[in-house]
């Protein structure tokens, strides 16, 4: 496992350093910004983004079938799967730490840096987001890193289609004629419910997806011809 993590760090060294640097700048700028409607949510999403930047970077680093070399070292397939999930966890921790530090702890009013009031619920949301997104790892273990790109493109594409279609459908159905964003509607569902309950449900869904993704990855990768 030590060799695997070392490999992830060394292979991704430039992108990890750049990612860490840009994420710090990004969070710091957010700290300086004012008039953000829902800063805690933005911090939470950014935490997920930072975590996934590292995980996706790691997947991209495996281009060129380097897993064949990895598996010619004394490393088993199960360890390779564990390594990827462990990396996802560690990058979540990093993303969460960034969000917590800049959004909840650091507040230097003298330079205009204000606390965004990140709380435990926002951190739960980051964890849930990270766990849900591990759902794409079985695709990586089955089809390789290229498939993840298609998967992400498809996901983004479907999101846009859902947004537009949702806007049309919701606008047509609303008597007042006001345009309603699909995601506004979606988040509205959560807004009206108990936040603790909602976030715990999200984490539970994420944990379920992650567990299934882990088992599926293990099943796929230990049986796949490389």
């Amino acid at each position, binding site marked *: 496992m030590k060799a695997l993590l070392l490999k992830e760090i060394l292979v*991704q060294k430039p992108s990890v350093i750049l990612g860490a640097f840009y994420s710090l700048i990004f969070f710091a700028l957010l700290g300086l910004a004012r008039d953000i409607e829902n800063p805690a949510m933005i911090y939470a999403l950014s935490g997920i983004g930072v975590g996934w930047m590292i995980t996706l970077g790691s997947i991209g680093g495996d281009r060129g079938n380097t897993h064949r070399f990895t598996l010619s070292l004394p490393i088993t397939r199960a360890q390779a799967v564990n390594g990827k999930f462990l990396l996802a966890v560690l990058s979540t921790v990093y993303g969460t730490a960034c969000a917590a530090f800049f959004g909840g702890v650091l507040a230097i009013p003298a330079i205009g840096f204000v606390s965004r009031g990140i709380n435990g619920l926002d951190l739960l949301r980051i964890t849930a987001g990270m766990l849900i997104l591990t759902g794409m790892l079985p695709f990586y273990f089955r089809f390789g890193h290229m498939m993840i790109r298609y998967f992400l493109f498809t996901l983004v594409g479907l999101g846009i289609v859902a947004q537009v279609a949702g806007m049309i459908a919701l606008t047509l159905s609303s008597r007042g004629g006001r345009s309603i964003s699909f995601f506004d509607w979606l988040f509205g569902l959560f807004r009206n419910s108990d936040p603790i309950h909602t976030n715990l449900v999200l984490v539970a869904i994420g944990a379920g997806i992650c567990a299934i993704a882990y088992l599926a990855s293990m099943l796929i990768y230990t049986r796949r011809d490389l």
Partner: protein
Amino acid sequence: MRVLEIENVTKHYRKKAALAGVSIELDEGYVMGIVGPNGAGKTTLLKAILNLVRIDSGRISLFGTRHIDAERATRDRIGFVHEESYLYEPINLGDLERICRAAYTQWNRQSFRNYVDRFELPPKRRIKEYSKGMKMRLSVAVALSHEAELIVMDEPSSGLDPLVRRELIDVIGEELARENRTFLIATHITSDLDRIADYVVVLDGGQVRLSVTRDEMADNYALCKGGTEVLARDTNGCFRGVSRNEFGFTALTSERQEVAKRFGDEVVMERATIEDLMVHTLARTGESPRRDGLQIVARDTGTPEGASDGDGGVQ
């Protein structure tokens, strides 16, 4: 000690058989060359040994243990050189060494440094900036720097210039001087094996078509040339892979003495190279080669000379 034992291994890709009942045994301290045309199943066989490819049936044992059991421990004792470079290209040689040092229990830094110096590999440059020859030499350096007992090489000299190929063969020759080194080399550049192979296996269509020891080759095999009128007589199956041209015929024999006795000066015999062995065993024109479904044996009988006696070493 038996390093590798492959028993009746089969592997299908969809419905096509990549390996169809291959059996091989290899003992410590020997070099086995696996030759065959493209698509013969060489790479699949080597990948199966490392469990990069799952076999459908049969059994593979490494150092007396089933290859899928104690995978980590057995891989620690194997050095594998892939046909292409699958090294981590964004990093440099020093970083690669750090990863290997963390992975292998017996990483030999001095040995690696020696190979790096000998192969003139630039330590600061990223691996993706290396030439193909450099990447192959780096792969060899990694495979030979962790006290591996079995070194498996898949087309190690493919695409390399003659100087690098010669250097590679020299390195293998030097490594063989060390007591516990065993080599399994798959290639279609058969000349690489002429100098070093103790055993030669001809693989085609996922089956072992022929297996011989180096001394069997020297004693029994020969490339025969003569007039086509010879073929009109009863050849008693002495010739395989007969090819005819306007001057006569060329064929391989595994019965050198019998041919000399039967045909005398009518047939000229030359030393058969591994290429001759492969070409005439797998010949698809002229007379059909003898397809006797032989299985390889490289038994530990002290020396390669005694590894088989005629076809006696063939299962």
